[in-house]
């Protein structure tokens, strides 16, 4: 947004190093602000900063403008700089996604239970690989239980996705084999495509990805090899709709709802309601698995049953995952 004399309310959002337009994480967070902007007289300033080293000064520069009702920061890379800045600018409201700052009342820190989300994706994949599904030329192989995981960069965060996904698959399906691989990049679609295609070659009939913008490659591999894929973060059968015919469903987190809630709370002067440590978890309904647009009502009932069981087990505290939300 331009700094012409503007709206009644203002919010800023700073991207994670992956940048906006990932059709996933960053966009998901921004969507909540955009929703709010439709209802309120709110201007959003989205600041894409892909260099971690710049976060400290970008945060400071925004805060210094003394303009924003809240500044949203996507990704735990913002944590270290924010520890300083939340102190330097005590009157500024901050929202941090993926971490929280101990003792800072002006920070609303949201931890997304990525591991729970990954677990649900695993449950879905583990269930569906044993079912017989056919759609527009694609099919599963119900006789074998092989599924794939395609990571972007081979880093802690994504390793946590991987491990939790495998645990989810194994929770519903002891015999299942999970093939895993990393394309090495969050933007190289063809690398993700190659990894997924290799897994499909090796028997995987469903692949899930945690590769941000590169994830489209996993979908296209599924599409051209007549198999299926699962989306991440948001309903990717909508955001990547040309692959809707192979996206059985997506493991999602309601990051958009979180940002919506925080920005509206800030505008309504109810900061206290959102400050401190927050969770996006299954328990709070912030994590879920939703069926793809073209598969609504057509997937086997076992899927819903297993997902419900898994969620109940989480709420009951029966499931202990090896990894946390951002690493193991």
């Amino acid at each position: 947004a331009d700094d012409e004399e503007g709206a009644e309310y203002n919010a800023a959002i700073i991207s994670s190093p992956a940048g906006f337009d990932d059709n996933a994480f960053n966009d998901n967070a921004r969507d909540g602000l955009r929703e709010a902007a439709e209802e309120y007289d709110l201007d959003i300033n989205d600041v894409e900063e892909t260099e971690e080293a710049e976060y400290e000064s970008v945060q400071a520069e925004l805060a210094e403008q003394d303009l924003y009702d809240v500044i949203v920061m996507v990704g735990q890379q913002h944590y270290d700089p924010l520890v300083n800045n939340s102190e330097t600018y005590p009157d500024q409201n901050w929202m941090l996604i993926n971490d929280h700052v101990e003792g800072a009342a002006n920070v609303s820190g949201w931890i997304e239970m990525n591991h729970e989300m990954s677990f649900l994706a695993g449950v879905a994949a583990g269930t569906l690989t044993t079912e017989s599904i056919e759609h527009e030329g694609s099919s599963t192989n119900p006789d074998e239980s092989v599924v794939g995981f395609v990571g972007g960069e081979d880093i802690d965060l994504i390793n946590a996705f991987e491990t939790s996904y495998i645990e989810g698959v194994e929770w519903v399906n002891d015999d299942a084999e999970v093939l895993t691989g990393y394309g090495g990049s969050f933007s190289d679609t063809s690398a993700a495509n190659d990894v997924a295609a290799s897994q499909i070659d090796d028997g995987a009939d469903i692949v899930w990805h945690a590769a941000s913008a590169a994830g489209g490659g996993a979908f296209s591999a599924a599409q051209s090899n007549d198999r299926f894929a699962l989306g991440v973060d948001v309903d990717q059968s909508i955001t990547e709709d040309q692959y809707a015919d192979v996206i059985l469903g997506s493991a999602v987190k309601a990051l958009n709802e979180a940002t919506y809630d925080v920005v509206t709370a800030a505008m309504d002067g109810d900061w206290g309601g959102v400050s401190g440590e927050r969770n996006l978890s299954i328990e709070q309904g912030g994590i879920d698995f939703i069926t793809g647009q073209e598969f609504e009502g057509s997937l086997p009932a076992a899927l819903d049953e297993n997902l419900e069981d898994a969620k109940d087990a989480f709420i009951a505290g029966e499931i202990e995952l090896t990894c946390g939300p951002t690493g193991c």
Partner: protein
Amino acid sequence: MSDDGLLQQRWVRLGASAAVVLVVLGAVGSMMFGWDLERLLTVGFVNRSLQMATPITLAAIGGLYAEKSGVFNIGLEGFMIIGAISTAGVLFALGGTTPSQGDIWIAMVAAVLVSLVLTAIFAVLLIDYQADQIVAGLAVWFIGLGFAPFVASLVWGSRNSPGLASIDNVTVPGLSEIPWIGPVVFDQSPLVLLTLVLVIASWVFLYRTRYGYWVQAAGENPKALDTAGVNVTRVRYATVLFSGAMAGFGGAVLLAHAGNFVGTGDTMVNGRGWIAIVAYLFGNYNPLGAAAAAVLFGGLDMLQVQFQTAGIDVPSRLVNLFPYVIVIVVLSVWGKTRMPSAVGESYDQEE
């Protein structure tokens, strides 16, 4: 022709040594670590290696022609980015998010044309205005890295395009059932096959036609070519335009295989243009050698993916570096890639 005889020897040697390395690696791996070679070396692996090699090969051939004629086009990476974004843009203009296969071909042709136009400007600066070739080439990269995502932002409101369409394989019914050969040759991306044809054609052109002689002469001793009555400037224009077009085409092929444009980070081209330069140097300026080197890189890259799929535990981040290490080792052991002697020098026809 002892010169290209020599070159051929070199790439045969290169290919042979690569093969030996792979065989030894496979043998050691399967004996010591119980690797399942059948899971590693699949038809899909071969196909993906070829597809990976294709854009690199195309750009490499363009680059080697330019350099053979005395102009170092270090901007291949940039032109590949331009080729990719142009293809995506035209494809989107033609068919939105559901373009047809025909649209893909039109878009690729358009991308080559766009690359040609931009290369023409580049060529004028390089040849007529004697721009520093290294600097100008780097500039093309910067420009590609900047303007491609910029254009994407303007068109799609995002640095990444939505999914568009990727090119279908050409399948010959029946023949594609032949084990191994069938799926590799008769159920293959037409672009891979087209690249193969281009590789051979560019070899014949370079070593067996008069124009090929001129290209070589322009890079070795432009004055000799000039005094032989051939317009050096025209030869260099032709090769530079060709290099831009080929790199643009490489980018187009990359996009046609991937199906959407990604402009985050180093964009979807992600260093392939640099690898292309390495490939042709590695292949000692011989189109066949360059293609072989590209397949070698593609193969190493995809082998690493196979390792992951087969669950062979390797830190992928480190294994990904394997091709780069190989390049350094081979360059150091074999040393000397002899550049054409007039590379980088501009040539004044008169005064």
